[in-house]
């Protein structure tokens, strides 16, 4: 027993200093770490870095795409606004033109109507005038004829006799009546 304890003590002393390393353990750690390092360099880091790079690219690409889409949309909006303004201006212009044109047409029509009515009035006046002239002319000639006829009759008969004079007048009137009846026929 004593022997055992003594040997344990001496062995403990040999091992006792915790700063003295076990060479085999150092070897295992060195080799183990080298293997791990190899795997990490060869596989782990490249795979993670590739994923990170792909992800960054995807995100940046997405952002660029979104920015492009936004720029496009705002350009389209600008264009539409421009077109809308243009269309409004166009519509205003057309409306103004139409109004001006309508006024013009109205004025033309009014002028035309006035001219027409003037013309018609003129024509009527001319017709009335010519009729009157004709009536005057015919009346004048008829009255002359009548007067000469009547005067000849009166002169051809003795005017002293009242009975005779009355008969002459009656005859003249009857003649006049037959004459006008014949004219009416």
């Amino acid at each position, binding site marked *: 027993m004593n022997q055992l304890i003594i040997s*344990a003590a001496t*062995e403990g002393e040999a091992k006792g200093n*915790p700063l003295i390393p*076990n060479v085999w*353990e150092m070897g295992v750690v*060195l080799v183990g770490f080298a293997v791990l390092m190899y795997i*990490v360099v060869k596989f782990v880091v490249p*795979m*993670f870095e590739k*994923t990170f790079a792909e992800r960054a690219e995807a995100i940046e690409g997405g952002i660029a795409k979104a920015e492009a889409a936004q720029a496009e949309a705002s350009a389209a909006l600008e264009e539409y606004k421009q077109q809308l303004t243009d269309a409004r201006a166009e519509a205003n212009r057309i409306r103004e033109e139409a109004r001006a044109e309508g006024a013009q047409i109205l004025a033309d029509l009014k002028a035309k109507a006035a001219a027409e009515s003037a013309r018609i009035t003129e024509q009527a006046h001319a017709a009335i005038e010519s009729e009157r002239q004709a009536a005057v002319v015919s009346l004048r000639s008829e009255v002359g004829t009548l007067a000469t006829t009547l005067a000849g009759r009166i002169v051809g008969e003795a005017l002293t006799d009242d009975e005779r004079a009355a008969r002459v007048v009656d005859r003249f009137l009857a003649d006049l009546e037959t004459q006008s009846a014949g004219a009416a026929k």
Partner: protein
Amino acid sequence: MIALALPAQDSGSFTPPGIDEMHLPAILPWGAHDGFSKQMLLVILSVVIIATFFILAARKQQLVPGKLQFAGEMAYGFVRNSIAKDIIGGKDFIKYVPLLFSLFFFILVNNIYGAIPVIQLPSFSHVGGAYVMAAIVYVTWIAIGLKKNGIKYFKLATVPSGVPWYILPIVVPIEIISNFLVRPVTHSLRLFATMLAGHLIVMLAGSGIEFLVMQENVLLKGASVLVLVGAIAMYMLEALIMALQAYVFTLLTAIYIEGALHADSH
């Protein structure tokens, strides 16, 4: 061996577990050495766990990640952006991401072992692994400095600019010691010591509870509950420190690399 001797001792006294308890019997002993230890198995297992997880997570490479891929990307992005990009910066930080990434998760998984029941053994509670990790980093940042600045790098790293000449005899030895001698030692021992201490505390609490429960006295038995409460609190703290140390180790590596890259502006 002491564990074997314990039952023979007087059950009235408590023998706390010591540093020697950190060495479990080998799984596969060979020769005069300790043979294939549990630490070695755990280190190999950690490589398998990390590689499997990240290859599965990264394999699909979907633009819209699934749960596994998202978790992998979060973990990878943490080292890539919060450590490599923030500290080293520039456009060539990506070159150092694999090293920082491997360091962080290798140390993290090997530390977290200490918080997992049954496994309960942080790999870096043995100093060998910590030495190896610090040595890898040491060689790496010196190589980066030499590649970037040529042999002039040693002057840039040890002679600070803007210091009056008469102070240089004091400053230069300090810079040499702090940058080239002390730095790798603190880098490795910080990791090792926190893991060892954490593991020791968990062991101490465990054996303390066991000892108290075995006592005849009811009050002493009851006192084990207090130890248990303390042990749970320490366990939480240890879990935090395990993650934190992985982060600190990687962060310091990034700072050393950054210093080597931009030695002329420091």
